């Protein structure tokens, strides 16, 4: 019998031998993402409570408005119209707050543990962004499941399309949160700022009323500069596309226009994604410089 020179549990980890590079960075992105998942799963109440706002908008505001606006909508159920808007705005807070957790990490020191590691700070930021997008998308599944209650058919292409739009939108909104989190160092300051940003974005996105010829011209104009309008319009376009040809809700859905040219839904999504990638790059830059 031979005994090994060192106890097996004290095996020396040859860290220096590990190549850095892309694989290592991808693994870091993965673990940052995974940590956000673990924390959400440990606290499912957070996910459920964030569903309250969209449900209120859809079934309370929607029910109230359906009766009041029936004359102007050709008899459409206003809830059907509201659904895509509520779906998109319902993920905003989840996405932005998930980015803001990086400010908590800074306050509780964990950000430092990540920043002193032999990885690029961009990997942390990207992992966070994907984490926020995933959490918001999972949350939206619960809302999408309610589509049938507002006369929207469960079609595979519709569900996949909506999930895709939701993911891209929440990715972009998490990037918004990350840019803010890079600059604002305290949660107390950040919370009111998030409200100040998200409320106008929500109200000027056409999520709760139709844009286009039915809206005041100035509002229709302002909405074109709001990234959320593109997300809401894309979601509404794909929903309406799956409704029966005679559904009056179709009359309330209009594409955004650039100098009179109607922007197709796929381009809406690209606009949102482009803004997201741009903001994420800015966030990466901020974190690389300031921490």
């Amino acid at each position, binding site marked *: 019998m031979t005994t090994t020179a060192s106890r097996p549990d*004290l*095996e020396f*980890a040859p860290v220096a031998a590990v190549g850095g590079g892309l694989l290592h960075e991808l693994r870091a992105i993965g673990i940052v993402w995974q940590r956000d998942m673990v924390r959400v799963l440990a606290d499912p109440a957070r996910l459920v409570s964030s569903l309250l706002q969209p449900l209120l908008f859809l079934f309370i505001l929607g029910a109230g408005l359906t009766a009041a606006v029936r004359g102007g909508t050709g008899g459409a159920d206003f809830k059907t119209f509201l659904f895509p808007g509520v779906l998109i705005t319902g993920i905003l807070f989840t996405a932005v707050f998930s980015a803001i957790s990086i400010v908590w990490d800074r306050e509780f*020191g*964990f950000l430092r543990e990540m920043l002193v590691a032999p990885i690029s700070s961009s990997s942390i930021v990207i992992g966070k962004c994907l984490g926020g997008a995933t959490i918001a998308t999972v949350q939206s599944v619960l809302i999408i499941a309610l589509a049938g209650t507002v006369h929207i058919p469960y079609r595979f292409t519709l569900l996949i399309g909506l999930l895709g739009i939701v993911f891209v939108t929440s990715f972009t909104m998490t990037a918004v949160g990350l840019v803010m989190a890079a600059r604002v160092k305290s949660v107390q300051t950040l919370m009111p700022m998030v409200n100040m940003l998200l409320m106008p974005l929500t109200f000027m996105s056409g999520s709760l009323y139709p844009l286009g010829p039915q809206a005041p011209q100035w509002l229709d104009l302002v909405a074109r500069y709001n990234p959320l309008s593109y997300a809401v319009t894309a979601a509404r376009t794909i929903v309406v596309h799956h409704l029966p040809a005679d559904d009056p809700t179709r009359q309330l859905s209009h594409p955004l226009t650039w100098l009179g040219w109607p922007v197709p839904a796929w381009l809406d999504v690209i606009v949102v994604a482009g803004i997201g990638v741009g903001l994420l790059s800015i966030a990466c830059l901020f974190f690389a410089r300031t921490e």
Partner: protein
Amino acid sequence: MRGIDLDVEPGEVFGFLGPNGAGKSTTIKMLCTLVAPTEGSAQVAGLDVVAQRTAVRRQIGLVFQETTLDEYLTAEQNLKFHAAIYGMPRRIVGPRVDSVLDLVGLADRKSSAVRTYSGGMKRRLEIARGLLHSPRVLFLDEPTIGLDPDSRQVLWRYVDELRRREDITVFLTTHYMDEAERCDRIAIINHGTIVALGTPAQLKAEVGDDRVRLVTPDNAASARRIAERLKIEAAPDGDALLITVPDGEGFVPRLFDIGISVQSISISRPTLDDVFMAHAGRRMGDEEAAAAPRHWMRAMNR
């Protein structure tokens, strides 16, 4: 920082001492690549902290003054997170996690959320995490600050265990003298420069001799006798006599040889506090005591 010139040997436990604000943490931050030095250079494990920043980071383990754990994750999850961002080979992560948790005595708590840990346990977990990727150098910035005396004892037991089991250099800062005593070598820093460097024994020997304090029935007579027979001056110090000699313990029998009758006697060696006093002109604890709110409260309650 005004300029520090320092070599730390591989495998030693090196203590960096000084009062708050002396530049201990700044030095550590430079060595850990968190702050770039404005001039001069530093190498850690043979790598330059500015030019080879990422390589240095792979070779060092860090334990900061403040906690940097995710308290909502379990100990094991915290360690696995660390393993991933340090790029450890996947197959060794599991055994290595168990090994470092075992080293700091937390193996049975690895599945508990960190928020259920005591302060001492958190600090031990941080040391385990600092060791996880087998760094060549472990930096401990005030590792026992805010811990109760029992936890400090326990923590030091693990540091001693660590140097026995791992091939690693430990660089730590502290302002506790009793902790400095446990280091192989120490540097004392004040106002951004090193004022003393050496083993604790060397530094204390440099400061001076042992002090023998004795009380006799007639101090004046005894002093005269010691001066005549031993050619050593015994200075009055309150109701006692104070004698400084290089070897206090060897000196005491000689007093009996010349027939001095002693009522009480004590020998004291210079402490590191005396070393600091000699180099910086004040006590280590002075500003600490002045800044401690608890001390102030006690004064108020009186």
